[in-house]
Every structure is written in C-alpha cells, then in structure tokens.
C-alpha cells in the first residue's frame, strides 16, 4: 500500500492514505490504520462497497 501522506497519524506508525491516493476506496477517501490490520481492513472496506459510496 503506497502512502498518500505521512503526518501526525503516520508519524505514530499508522498506514495513512489521503484523498486522491487510493481509487479503490474512492477518490475522496481518507484512511488511517494500525499496520497490523491495514491490509485486511483495506480489503474489507473494498468488499463492503466503501469505494462506491
């Protein structure tokens, strides 16, 4: 997972994707997650239709 930006949340070790960086989640999606669940959560969100709202 590429990072759209690294900031306060990212500085603490989180995986962060900012708007425009993850089309599967939607062009205006913001996503931040602990690295241990980031991939699984990303997939679950895509499967749940998060990117099509």
């Amino acid at each position, binding site marked *: 997972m590429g990072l759209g*930006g*690294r*900031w*306060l*949340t*990212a*500085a*603490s*070790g*989180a995986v*962060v994707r*900012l*708007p425009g960086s993850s089309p599967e*989640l*939607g062009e*205006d*999606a*913001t*996503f*931040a*997650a*602990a*690295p*241990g*669940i*980031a991939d*699984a*959560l990303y997939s*679950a*969100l895509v499967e*749940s*239709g*998060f990117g*099509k*709202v």
Partner: protein
Amino acid sequence: MFDPRPLVDIATAIGREAGALVQRMRASAVVSFDTKSTSTDVVTAADRASEQLVRTRLSELRPGEPVLGEEEGGTVVEGLTWVVDPIDGTVNYLYGIPWYSVSIAAQLDGESVAGAVVEPATGRVWTAARGYGAFLDGTPLHVSATTDLSLSLLGYGFAYRPERRQRQADTWAAMATRVRDLRRAGAASLDLCSVAAGRLDAYAEHALGRWDWAAGG
C-alpha cells in the same frame, strides 16, 4: 536542513489562543448559526471568529504566507501554506460535546510538515513535525499493535448529503460484523489523532476537506 519544529510552536500558540476564544464564545455562538452545504452542515460565529484570529496572528508572525481556511477559503501554493480548520466538529461544539478542535497545519508544497490540533474543551494539544514524531501534550504517540481485524475498533464519519450518507450507512452496517465495534465521534482531526494514540485501531471517511486532515492525517 529545514527544521519544521518552530512552525509547530507557532501552530500550537495560535491554536491555543483560538481555542480559548472558541470556549469563551460558546454560550453566545450556539444561539445563532448558519448552514453551508446542507441544512445539517453548520457554521457558528465562533468558527468565523476563530479563523479570523488565526489568520490575523499568522499574518503577524508569518507575514506573506498564504492561508487556506475552511470558512474563508484560499489555495494551496508551492512553498509554504497554512491550512486551518477553525472548529473541526462544529456539530459537537453546538451540542456541548467536548470532542472538537482547532486544527492548524503548515504544508510545504502540499505536504504537511508541522501542525497542532488543540482541544479547546480540555486544553490538550496534539502535535507533530515531519521527522520528529507525534505527541499528545509532549508524550510520544504510538499506533496500536493490533493484528486481528475482528478485534479492532474502527472510527468512521458521514458525508452531509443524505443520499451519500445512506450508502455509507450500508457500508458501515456491513463492516459492523467484521470488526470489534464502530465509533462515530464527529471530529475528523481528533479521530485521526486517536488512531495515532492507539485509541482507535483505524479510521476511514469520505469527503474530508484538506483542513480536516492537514494536521491530523
């Protein structure tokens, strides 16, 4: 080498001053308010006063540097731009729920390099500077060590438009069976800070403005 830490000090000082103003104004500010994108998207006199204070202070301390604010607008330029959310979580502010913030970030060529998220109701200050870590009142922050999605606590938010909100609700209903639980607290900047502190394992939302994530995201 560029050192962003002095910019954190400026964001913190101005954020604290704006936060104090926001607190003083609460009783009067919530009596009369306007709406923006929808009837549920509110702006109070305190939002406007807070942004004006931040803009004035930045013009004094950092003359000539452009400001992008939620209420008065602006653009992000090459070089340094200040990004301001004068009250993030205005609906919480309106209802007296203490989960709202003043968020001020410095972005260099569109990337955040320094910022502060101030909680007016508690006085807590979340800060970060690129290359120097993230802190809550000076204590270093660390994201949670969870590795099991089914045991994770997920924060989320809603857009303002009703039709999009319905689709989002369908998504969160589907996600509710895949995680420990969901939390919708109502201030994106602080929700992102909560991920930084391990108080949430993750956060996801659509339609945030740059001012929502510039200091927290």
